[in-house]
């Protein structure tokens, strides 16, 4: 456990929480996949590209959580110690998690802000790739960029809630509000590991809100 605590960027929380966070992450995979499937259904029904892009964003988020969950599971179970033939695979997996999560948030931001310009999208993805390529202290920078993007996404969904005044639009706002708060806790968890637990709980509340929305839509 001492080894784990030192080098794997994803293993920032208290050791008693190892494994519990993986269960949370697997639940996030399932929930985001459900939203992805609903988006695909909406796309097939309407042939409207915005649903395809919305689905794509949730697919990337789902993939990001899956990579993190599997990587952490391999570490916790003692399957490997993170490095194989001198290559730090645990950090490579974490980098893949960061990559897919940021791509997912970027697509979601473009969809929610209704940005259709391919140039703007390309510029955003270029910044993202540059960030990944030249980043060190992945953990801090990743959560800082995520926080910035989630603030915009959550604010946009807040405005949508004010327009629609429906329970479902409120639930989508609540989801991204809690995901934003979670990023704040993730950032602070560098100095206070217990806050990592709070961050995971905030994410859970957020994803459960969107699950309620999903159930309400399909009822």
């Amino acid at each position: 456990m001492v080894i784990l605590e030192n080098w794997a960027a994803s293993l920032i929380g208290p050791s008693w929480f190892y494994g519990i966070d993986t269960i949370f992450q697997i639940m996030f995979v399932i929930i985001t996949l459900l939203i992805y499937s609903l988006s695909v259904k909406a796309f097939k029904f309407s042939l409207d590209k915005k649903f395809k892009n919305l689905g794509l964003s949730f697919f990337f988020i789902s993939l990001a959580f899956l990579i993190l969950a599997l990587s952490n599971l391999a570490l916790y179970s003692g399957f490997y110690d993170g490095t194989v033939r001198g290559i730090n695979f645990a950090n490579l997996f974490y980098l893949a998690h960061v990559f897919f999560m940021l791509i997912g948030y970027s697509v979601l931001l473009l969809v929610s802000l209704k940005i259709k310009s391919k140039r703007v999208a390309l510029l955003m993805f270029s910044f993202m790739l540059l960030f990944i390529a030249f980043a060190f202290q992945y953990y801090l920078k990743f959560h800082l960029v995520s926080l910035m993007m989630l603030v915009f996404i959550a604010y946009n969904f807040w405005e949508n809630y004010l327009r629609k005044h429906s329970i479902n639009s409120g639930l989508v706002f609540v989801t991204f509000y809690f995901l934003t708060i979670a990023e704040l806790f993730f950032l602070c968890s560098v100095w206070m590991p217990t806050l990592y637990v709070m961050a995971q709980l905030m994410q859970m509340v957020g994803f459960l809100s969107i699950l309620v929305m999903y159930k309400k839509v399909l009822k």
Partner: protein
Amino acid sequence: MSERRDRLDIIGDILKAIQDKGGKIKPTHLLYKSNLSHEGMKRYIDELKTKLMIIEEEDLKKKSRHFMITERGLNFLQDYKKIREFTDSFGL
């Protein structure tokens, strides 16, 4: 100001107008309810008839015509409402 309706919304509005009238509506009422031009409505009606979502019924005695919603049309309307709710949730 209301937002511009897309193709899916117009089809949804037409089917809902028929459903609200008990599943059967006169063309003049539908024209009024769907808020479309005569040409526009004709185009959508032809599409819905081709897709078997509505059928046209002619009463030779009364010399009147009606559009009736089919089972397929009702299923489409149900799916449309769900998709609309999903769209509204995200403000898309």
